[in-house]
């Protein structure tokens, strides 16, 4: 017997009870739809976050104080750590120490309250060196300027406002040239950043940016919260990391790498950790959706058992006409698999449609820059899983059908 004949036979068996078939596959449709949505949105979220991380440039390496956090409770160590000193920065900046680094700049931040006339604004002041403007591709709005190396050297009292900081303090009026007060000291606003949005977990729009020396003076901090090092190329990253470790271990008198009081994060590390988090989330949500597939599969099995009993005479007749046990098994198994695969295909269509809709809604109304891409992996998985469900839950009813004796089946009323 040819498989194409078997397909036709199974198809006509199913269309005999069209509405029943449609209702039976609902569970599968819902399950596959849910899996597609979870996978597609998970992928979009991951793309979004990874895209932001990578906007910093893949050559950027961040040196942080403290031990590498092993979990959420460890994060405090890297924020409060004071192991990165001025000397470390100076030594890292020396070409002979880290030959493959093209730029080394420290970052220091401090929580402050800024005020202008009667307006006040609680925010973070970020102390950076001017080279970081380029690293984060920050641009200033005309009229206005960014600060330069001179301002760092002279510890100038100048600030650049993030977009939101400007609005909070000045409303719609012009701020360039005005003076704001932070901790009782006056700072001249020399520029306002173009709206940038969330980037690499720092929203520059919210903050006030100043030369790092100025912020050190302001907060009295003698250490850095982080030092960013830009390698000359992605390939040079490992050698740069090695050099940084050597310099810092020498400076901190550390023999055993286990005792490091700093840790180094590459963009790749960040992407990896973010991807692993979104992957875990996707798998978790996907498994919840998979439960409905099991329920749907049980529904299919139930209906297939009913169908086998109803069609006992048909089975007997087919056997009398020469159908082997295998012919009958394959016929009923094919019916179950056609049902679940049809459910899977409908689920993929629904899931893709709903995902596209969600992406449009998120973009329009929530301003989240999700991109929609057809979830190919999800679709393939959906087809595979739905046919597997049909196979697993169809095999018992099909086996029951195949083992019916022709004469018992023909006698069945």
């Amino acid at each position, binding site marked *: 017997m*040819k498989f194409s004949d078997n397909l036709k036979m199974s198809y006509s068996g199913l269309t005999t009870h069209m509405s029943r078939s449609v209702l039976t596959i609902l569970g599968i449709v819902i399950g596959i739809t849910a899996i597609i949505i979870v996978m597609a949105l998970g992928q979009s979220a991951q793309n979004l976050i990874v895209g932001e991380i990578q906007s910093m440039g893949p050559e950027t390496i961040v040196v942080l104080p403290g031990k590498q956090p092993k979990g959420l409770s460890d994060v405090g160590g890297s924020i409060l750590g004071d192991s990165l000193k001025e000397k470390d920065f100076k030594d890292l900046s020396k070409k002979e120490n880290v030959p493959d680094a093209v730029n080394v700049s420290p970052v220091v931040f401090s929580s402050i309250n800024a005020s202008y006339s009667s307006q006040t604004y609680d925010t973070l002041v970020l102390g950076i060196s001017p080279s970081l403007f380029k690293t984060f591709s920050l641009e200033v709005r005309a009229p206005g300027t960014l600060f330069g190396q001179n301002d760092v050297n002279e510890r100038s009292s100048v600030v650049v406002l993030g977009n939101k900081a400007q609005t909070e303090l000045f409303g719609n009026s012009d701020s360039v040239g005005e003076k704001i007060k932070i901790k009782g000291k006056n700072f001249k606003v020399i520029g306002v950043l173009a709206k940038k949005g969330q980037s690499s977990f720092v929203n520059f729009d919210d903050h006030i940016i100043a030369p790092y020396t100025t912020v050190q003076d302001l907060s009295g901090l003698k250490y850095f919260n982080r030092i960013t090092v830009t390698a000359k190329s992605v390939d040079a990253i490992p050698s740069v990391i090695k050099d940084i470790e050597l310099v810092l271990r020498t400076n901190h008198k550390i023999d055993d790498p286990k005792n490091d009081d700093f840790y180094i994060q590459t963009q790749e590390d960040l992407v990896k950790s973010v991807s692993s988090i979104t992957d875990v989330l996707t798998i978790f949500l996907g498994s919840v959706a998979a439960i409905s597939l099991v329920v749907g599969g049980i529904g299919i099995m139930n209906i297939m058992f009913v169908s086998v009993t109803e069609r006992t005479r048909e089975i007997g007749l087919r056997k009398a006409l020469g159908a082997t046990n295998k012919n009958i098994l394959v016929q009923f198994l094919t019916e179950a698999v056609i049902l679940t695969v049809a459910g899977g295909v409908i689920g993929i269509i629904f899931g893709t449609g709903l995902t596209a809709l969600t992406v449009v809604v998120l973009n329009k109304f929530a301003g989240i820059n999700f991109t929609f891409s057809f979830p190919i992996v999800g679709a393939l998985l959906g087809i595979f899983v739905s046919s597997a469900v049909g196979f697993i839950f169809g095999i018992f009813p099909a086996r029951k059908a195949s083992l019916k004796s022709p*004469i018992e089946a023909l006698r069945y009323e």
Partner: protein
Amino acid sequence: MLIETRGLKKIYSIDGSETPAVNGINLEIKEGEFVAIIGPSGSGKSTLLQILGCLDRPTDGEYFLDGKEVSKYSDDELAHLRNKKFGFVFQSFNLLGRLSVLENVELPLIYAGVSESKRREMAVKVINSIGLSDRIDFETMRLSGGQKQRVAIARALVNEPRIIFADEPTGNLDSKSGRAILNFFEKLHEEGHTIILVTHETFLAESAERIIHLKDGLIEKEEIVNHKSYKERKFFK
């Protein structure tokens, strides 16, 4: 000898008590014979037919088909045998109502693995020969009883079987349709087919060459039908 049985038995065990339906039957049927098996209900005639048609297995005894002992064949071998060598006509037609006349007649050929074009050609030929060519695409559930049984006969013939088994083929038909069906069997017999017919009505059995009377699972007597008188009777009808 086409069919030969020795001590054929079929015993049903219900709640521990054993009921013999066929209780040791020795039978010989030659190629081309038209044999009627007759007896009251419960005499075991249908069970005997089912065993001869390899739809069921005997509990005891031997069944030689073309000299081969088939009662120990596997399920698949029996299915193959039924497909290639047997044609069945049942009292309740057993057509697949949603399928067309053509599709019903094609069924045995599908299991024989015949190609679609060849299948169609063979089925159409048989359907024409039973005079249903104008109904070929009808769903069989829309046909009358007599037409349904003709479709069933076409289905039984399409694989060019060695033996046609008919179990009360006219039982669900009015006398006119029944007569027409019987004429088909007579014609098939004249063409050389081997036919084994089960019935409980004497006048139907008289179409055959030989009548086997069953009672309580045993052969009570056998009689050879006087064909001359049969043909005369048909002539004077």
